[in-house]
């Protein structure tokens, strides 16, 4: 695999970390080896605190497995892991007053595969770490979905018992949401946004590294819940109380997994906000930012405001369980509906957290590969902001049948339907962008246009669910399953694929295989529609969601859906094969294979270790395709030409 450093053999500073010391001192050197002994050490410390407290307070039983798992394995051990790999080294040295290592950029760049397994502060390396990790959990979540579909192929029980089945779809959804869609967008943005801004890195590189390393912790936590007594958490990714309070041990793996993933999201979002606000290249005003940057700006605002609410909701459930608080215990004055209000106050904006970055990717790809300026750039940016604001006023549309205050339904319906307006603006503007363009249907463009068409279907089924009377009938049926997959698969996942193919040459320095990319798209596109469209029908006809068994009348459709879903799953193999072989043996990529104007394409593929040898000067809008002599930015030696242009803008 080509690494970012290859292009910098002549760099004056020797990049990369100093070689690790030999002998026993190596155990103290930050990395996996140190983590290997610090994890059990911290687990022991955490467990000892629990046991000592219980012994001192005489709480029986003193050795209480559930609390030991919670404090020792789910809180202390991950901190030990982070400390072991060196995520805190700089801050600890600073805090205790010992000399911090001066910034020699030794954390930057990747020179061998090992450099992807250490704390790396280079946003490009972190972006790749994010993508590799999220694709791993995408495969894990996808396999769980295959198991779900295998069970549903026939009415009656085939392979699993009910608790296992409930665990399968719960972990499937949680992995796909918290470990794939949200962080995959964060990974793409991590790689691309600093480049697009003309910045050498993110604003807080060490925080960036820490945000990444929280992710595998969350993912392993959620997956490993299958191994504990009682099985995986099984109350859905929504984890409604009071059911979730009284589930087997696996539930706290979800409660804590969400904390680690959520912390990762919040840190990354803060990092993006500061980076976007303070590190734009000279001349890049807000109205000259690419729409991907706009999208990540609004997404980050959503994350920072909303994510603490899901953290709170999961803590409340866990406290009810381990501390016997009574947030959701009616008998003791608790309020179960409170859980849903808090949960959806995050989880509805989360839908936009999972969609707005995709809107940004679609805008980049569609404009560059249609060779036309994005249609209505300012309205595109403003509609992102409109979705951000409206997104916080619609959460109760998940609760139309929940028994909440009935008067809330009509106002929440109105705001919900109103979100269709800015969303519609975006769809129509993309269509107007491709209108009369010169459409190059390379793989990213297929995914982007495929996204627009699938997202329209997902948006229209959203109108059905937004209208209260229809929602009363379709709520918690397969219609909802169809809708979320049209939005999150046809929407988010299609744009993630568009982004991966679009920036693949920039990230790896190699070109992916175009034929395999197109094959991957068509297999997925057809398989996706055959799998999820019939779900609308069986939903309105009366099949509820989250059931391992169903009425025989739905047998034929479910068999059809299961077979289609296996084909859909198999299409992923084409993707993986293409990625792995192209990364190793693909043709070397040009700096700018798409002839795009945004800044990331103005540097080599892969980019130099600090992105820009010279700070770029932004002189115009990012999408001026077809405008004679238009430029977005000026780099390297064009100073004479620049001065007049800067003045004239």
């Amino acid at each position, binding site marked *: 695999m080509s690494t970012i450093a290859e292009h910098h053999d002549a760099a004056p500073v020797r990049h990369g970390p100093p070689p690790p010391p030999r002998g026993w001192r190596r155990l103290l050197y930050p990395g996996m080896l140190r983590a290997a002994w610090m994890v059990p050490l911290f687990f022991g410390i955490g467990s000892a605190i629990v046991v000592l407290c219980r012994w001192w307070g005489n709480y029986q039983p003193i050795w209480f497995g559930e609390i030991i798992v919670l404090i020792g394995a789910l809180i202390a051990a991950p901190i030990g892991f982070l400390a072991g790999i060196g995520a805190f080294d700089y801050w600890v040295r600073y805090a205790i007053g010992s000399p911090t290592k001066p910034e020699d950029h030794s954390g930057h760049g990747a020179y061998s595969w090992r450099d992807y397994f250490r704390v790396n502060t280079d946003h490009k390396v972190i972006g790749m770490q994010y993508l590799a990790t999220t694709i791993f959990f995408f495969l894990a979540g996808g396999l769980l979905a295959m198991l779900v579909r295998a069970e549903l192929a026939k009415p009656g029980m085939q392979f699993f018992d009910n608790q296992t089945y409930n665990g399968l779809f719960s972990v499937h959804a949680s992995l796909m949401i918290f470990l794939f869609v949200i962080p995959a967008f964060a990974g793409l943005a991590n790689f691309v946004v600093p480049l697009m801004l003309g910045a050498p890195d993110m604003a807080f590189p060490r925080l960036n590294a820490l945000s990444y390393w929280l992710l595998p912790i969350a993912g392993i936590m959620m997956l490993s819940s299958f191994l504990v007594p009682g099985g995986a958490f099984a109350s859905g990714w929504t984890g409604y109380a009071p059911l979730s309070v009284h589930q087997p041990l696996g539930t706290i793996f979800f409660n804590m997994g969400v904390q680690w993933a959520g912390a990762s999201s919040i840190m990354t979002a803060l990092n993006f906000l500061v980076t976007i606000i303070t590190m734009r290249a000279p001349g890049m005003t807000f109205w000259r930012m690419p729409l991907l940057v706009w999208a990540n700006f609004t997404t980050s605002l959503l994350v920072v405001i909303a994510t603490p609410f899901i953290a709170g909701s999961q803590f409340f459930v866990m406290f009810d369980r381990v501390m016997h608080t009574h947030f959701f215990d009616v008998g003791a004055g608790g309020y179960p509906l409170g859980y849903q209000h808090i949960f959806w106050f995050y989880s509805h904006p989360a839908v936009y957290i999972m969609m707005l970055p995709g809107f940004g990717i679609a805008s980049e790809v569609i404009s560059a590969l249609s060779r036309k300026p994005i249609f209505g750039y300012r309205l595109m940016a403003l509609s992102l902001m409109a979705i951000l604001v409206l997104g916080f006023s619609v959460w109760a549309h998940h609760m139309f049948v929940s028994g909440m205050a009935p008067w809330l339904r009509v106002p929440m319906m109105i705001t919900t339907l109103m979100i269709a307006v800015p969303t519609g603006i975006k769809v129509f503007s993309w269509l107007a962008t491709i209108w009369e363009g010169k459409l190059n249907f390379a793989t990213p463009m297929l995914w982007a246009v495929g996204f627009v068409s699938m997202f329209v279907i997902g948006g229209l089924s959203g109108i059905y669910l937004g*209208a209260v009377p229809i929602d009363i*009938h379709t709520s918690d049926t397969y219609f909802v399953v169809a809708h979320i997959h049209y939005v999150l698969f046809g929407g988010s996942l299609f744009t993630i694929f568009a982004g991966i193919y679009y920036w693949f040459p920039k990230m790896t320095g190699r070109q992916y295989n175009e034929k395999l990319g197109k094959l991957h798209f068509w297999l997925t596109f057809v398989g996706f529609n055959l799998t999820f469209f019939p779900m609308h029908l069986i939903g309105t006809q009366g099949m509820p969601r989250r059931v391992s068994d169903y009425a025989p009348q739905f047998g034929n459709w479910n068999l059809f859906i299961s077979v289609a879903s296996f084909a859909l799953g198999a299409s992923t193999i084409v993707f993986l094969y293409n990625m792995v072989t192209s990364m190793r043996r693909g043709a070397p990529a040009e700096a700018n294979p798409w002839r795009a104007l945004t800044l990331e394409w103005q540097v080599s593929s892969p980019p130099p270790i600090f992105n820009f040898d010279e700070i770029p000067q932004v002189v115009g809008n990012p999408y001026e395709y077809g405008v004679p002599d238009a430029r977005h930015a000026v780099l390297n030696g064009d100073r004479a030409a620049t001065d007049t242009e800067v003045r004239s803008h």
Partner: protein
Amino acid sequence: MRRGSIVQLIVIGVLAGAVASAVALIPDWLPTSASREAGRIDFVFWFVTAICIFVFSIVAAVTIYSVWKFRVKPDDDSDGPPIHGHTGLEILWTAVPALLVTSIAIVSAIVLAKDDAAGANPLRVNVYAQQFFWSYGYPGYGNKISSVLRVPVNRSVVLTMHSRDVIHSFWVPEFRQKQDLVPGVHATLHITPNKVGTYPVICTELCGLGHALMRSRVVVMEPAAFEQWAEKKTK
């Protein structure tokens, strides 16, 4: 735009609309309608469907036409026309969807208000849910308890929800009505059955191990038969 391309665009739009209409009309999207509320909810369903087919046809026409007409070879280096926007169009596609969703909101709000209003002299029934059983109590008939919901046809029924453990949800697809049963919350649901028959009661809120099996039946009876059943002391 030339006249020829406008005609082509319209033809594609009509074809897309025809396909979408076929998808909407050929399969039975909704189960039998067995309550007055179902009739109204179905009206909203088809109202929204008509609007969605309209929007889908426009989007499909533009997408298919563009993919068909504007694709170029990968080695084509030319750029498209530098069109940055069009204020009139942008106002149009802000205003028209806003009007459409407003009309949906108004129709929905009216139907919701009608469905929420109980008719005169309603039959009151308590719905009890616990993992993983349904039972029904008739306060007007000496708190008679039944494991099957029996209701008379053409009389308003007010169901009051009681959950004994976790959240469940009461759904009869043929009535199109659904209501969660949350511990401590006694929500009501109004149903006016208008078709004699037996329909499934389905729990639609994940309630644990036996969720998929938490089923019961509702039997809509002639009023005389219902009275006869209800007056009997035993189940």
